[in-house]
């Protein structure tokens, strides 16, 4: 019988509870106040300048994280240093649960995780990077919402072509316990086979109710109109899905990665350039250029890199309020930068032979023929106009 005692921070959380259950009496929950935890508890204040581990601890699984950004980055790192010092003092092994986003740190979350990983590895600790954690009764956040959505008979197919690498919470907890018992310093990636969100929802549907939802393509603007301001329930989940798209920072903080093979083919190893290239792909598609040549991507990236502080732009509003509403917007708002970048993508595409051809027709056609061609575009135009109208009502 293994008698290793393992301390867990964040034991009251989604993963923490599973680990405590798995350890069956060998776990010591550590927190500032006793709350929501079962089994043995020890007081441990991360913000204490020199905290002490309780006696007889062989390893610490560090799950607690400031996901609401209540602490500054420096404070959070200082807390971690305190924990590392406490572990070194007792010779306890430290298992730090990081995130996939630390791989290509772009956003605040990813940067914090990357800095924290470095501290842990320097102190010969272990870093674990889980994918999207699913399963269990109390799954939270994105996974729970995907489960809720999987119960629907019909769902809008909204993209995103984002990919997830799901891992079951039981598998993750078991792996973390094993690592804590006998791991050696390094980075461990705990992520399953990559699949799209749509595939994952379908899997949930099949395993939970024996059938996957039917996916129907429809414009995001309409879905958003339907969702309104719902705070909970299916409509809120759908809205969350709408907001989920495309921004690498956010995706990676949830264990997602946006995979576009052409962006990966972009000849640069710099993460900023790669993410700008995938931005270029997305925006060029919005302006009618489905297959941009690599030169066009390069041109876009270079143009953005001339900015004082080049950074990817938040593209989520493209799905939230639609490209029409953004491009037609006159008022100043936080969407200006996105509009400017669409404008840039449009201008760059327009000034290629391909773009010029897309916009010109020299052949005369009959009046009726022209009317039919326009009539065929009418439904899409009406949808766009509705999106513009509904967004200008919402954003004054």
């Amino acid at each position: 019988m293994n008698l290793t005692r393992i301390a867990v921070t964040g034991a009251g959380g989604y993963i923490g509870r599973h680990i405590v259950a798995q350890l069956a009496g060998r776990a010591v929950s550590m927190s500032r106040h006793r709350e929501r935890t079962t089994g043995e508890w020890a007081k441990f204040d991360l913000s204490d300048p020199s905290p002490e581990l309780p006696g007889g601890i062989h390893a610490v699984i560090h799950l607690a994280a400031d996901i609401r950004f209540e602490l500054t980055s420096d404070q959070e790192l200082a807390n971690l240093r305190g924990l590392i010092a406490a572990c070194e003092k007792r010779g306890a092994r430290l298992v730090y649960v990081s995130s996939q986003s630390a791989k290509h740190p772009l956003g605040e979350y990813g940067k914090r995780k990357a800095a924290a990983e470095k501290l842990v590895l320097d102190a010969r600790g272990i870093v674990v990077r889980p994918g999207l954690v699913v399963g269990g009764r109390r799954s939270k956040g994105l996974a729970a919402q995907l489960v809720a959505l999987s119960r629907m008979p019909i769902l809008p197919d909204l993209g995103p072509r984002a990919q997830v690498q799901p891992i079951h919470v039981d598998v993750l907890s078991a792996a973390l316990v094993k690592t804590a018992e006998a791991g050696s310093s390094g980075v461990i990636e705990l992520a399953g086979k990559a699949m799209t969100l749509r595939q994952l929802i379908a899997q949930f549907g099949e395993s939970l109710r024996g059938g996957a939802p039917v996916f129907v393509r429809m414009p995001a603007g309409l879905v958003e109109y339907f969702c309104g301001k719902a705070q909970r329930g299916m409509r809120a989940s759908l809205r969350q899905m709408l907001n989920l798209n495309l921004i690498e920072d956010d995706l990676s903080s949830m264990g997602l990665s946006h995979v576009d093979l052409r962006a990966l083919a972009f000849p640069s190893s710099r993460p900023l350039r790669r993410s700008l290239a995938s931005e270029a792909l997305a925006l060029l598609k919005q302006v009618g250029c489905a297959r941009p040549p690599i030169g066009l991507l390069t041109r876009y990236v270079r143009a953005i890199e001339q900015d004082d502080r080049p950074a990817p732009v938040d593209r989520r509003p493209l799905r939230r309020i639609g490209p029409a509403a953004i491009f037609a917007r006159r008022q100043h708002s936080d969407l200006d930068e996105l509009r400017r970048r669409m404008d840039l993508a449009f201008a760059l595409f327009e000034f290629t032979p391909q773009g010029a051809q897309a916009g010109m027709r020299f052949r005369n056609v009959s009046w009726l023929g022209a009317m039919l061609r326009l009539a065929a575009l009418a439904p899409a135009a009406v949808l766009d106009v509705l999106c513009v109208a509904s967004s200008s009502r919402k954003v004054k």
Partner: protein
Amino acid sequence: MSIDISAQVVVIGSGPAAVMAAKPMLDAGLDVLMLEAGDWTSPDFPSDSWTNFRLQSKQQWPLLGSRRGWPSVAEARSPKFGVPWVHQLVGTSGDALAFQGRDFGGTPLATVGGLSAAWGAGLGLFDHHDLADWPIDISDLLDSYRAIADRIGASGTWVDTHAPAPSTLKAHPGLHPSAMHILGRTKPRRGFTLSPALNAVLNEDKEGRRSCDQGGSCLYGCPREAIWSAAYEVRALKQHPRFRLVTGVRADRLERQHNGWNVGCHDGKRIRTRYVICAAGAIGSSRLVLPAIPGAPQRVRLLSSPAAAFALLIPSRLGAGWQRRFFGLAQLQVQQAIGANDYVFGNIFCGEGVPMRFLASMAPVSPKLALRIFRDLVPATLFGNVFFDGRHSDHTLTVLPSGRVEVSGGHASTVAGALNVAAKNLRKNFGRLGAILLPMKPVLAAPGSDLHYAGSIPMSSVAAPGKTDRWGAPFGAPDLIVVDGSVLTSLPPKGHTFTIMANAHRMASYWAGRWALASHEIMKSKS
């Protein structure tokens, strides 16, 4: 105090007013030094026809310039300002000229040729109604109008009841089928005039410049130099032995000296001159002149023409294909009464030469869809802008103690009503010609973004500091004249560049003889 250069006459600026004022000075035998803050700029435009270039060249991106300094396309409402390099020039000049706008998109242009580097080449003829408040009469301008039209080469319709067109006037270089369609149906109608636009464009070769061949790159520039620019005049003036041009030097101060002025420049240089002709544009000239006049206010009104863009869809032309060759500047000019004593004036363009991104930004659909819609609509659509009288603006120009100049304010409250009436009247009148006016609710361009502003140091019959007399001389500041848009007493809706040029020519012709005589007498007394 060191004097780095001296000259008999310093002309500040190299735009349309500057070149029109410089010529009479040289003719009268005076030495002229022209100061330009910017440098020679010329857009890279194709020598092939625009359409062929667009369909074939893989080297089109240089036309876009650098992204730095692009104002957003949605802030510009004139097709001309859908052109990126114009954007860029506008976007980078303000800082170079110590200018800041608050909610004002206009800016002086730091380039040889000044505003004519970016203009649509439309020539607006003022009439006696337009000059109602001015201390001059239309007959004072007519000779200058005609002389300048001869000199720069003009084509189109001379809509003027006061005097016949100059004999050198040529026909419009190329009307688009859609323009001909509505023009062919036009009947005389009270308060509504539609005619082929009068442009400073050659329809016959002239002095090294070649006539328009409908190449279509007009909004970007003309490889044949058919579109007049003050830069061509500067080039010609440079051949004159008594003319000097200094570029890249910004005049910052005018200091009154005994018998003349010192011009202080941004690089610390001082230029000693007997006479100063200020032609730096309404903003640039105000910045120099207001501090130099004893007792003049440093906060003055700036007139600015509100503008709105519209499109005319001609349903019966649907199905027509794009024109491969076309004239890309104003096809037609329209004047529409909007009240007993008020009207709007507009220019109408064909869509072939207008950047698609500009068109797309006007449609409430996604850019991708706009591209497909306009592909079919452009040959059956005309695009226009209308300008309102400057009285519908409420802008203040302030010369700050730091020497910078700031423009703030916005449209006057009267403009919303004027816009509604204009849209209603135009919709009705174009409807009769088989064209649908779009959009249903026209929106005003950002104030100043169409560069129609003037009147900060207006000509006045009443002597007061901050005004000039009918010859452009500010009251209280001798040996100095202001010849650009600053001195316009009012700002009618018509394009005002032609009038600024005519007025500069008129004023400079008046002073040239007097100054030459005075200089001659000084020389005589010295000897």
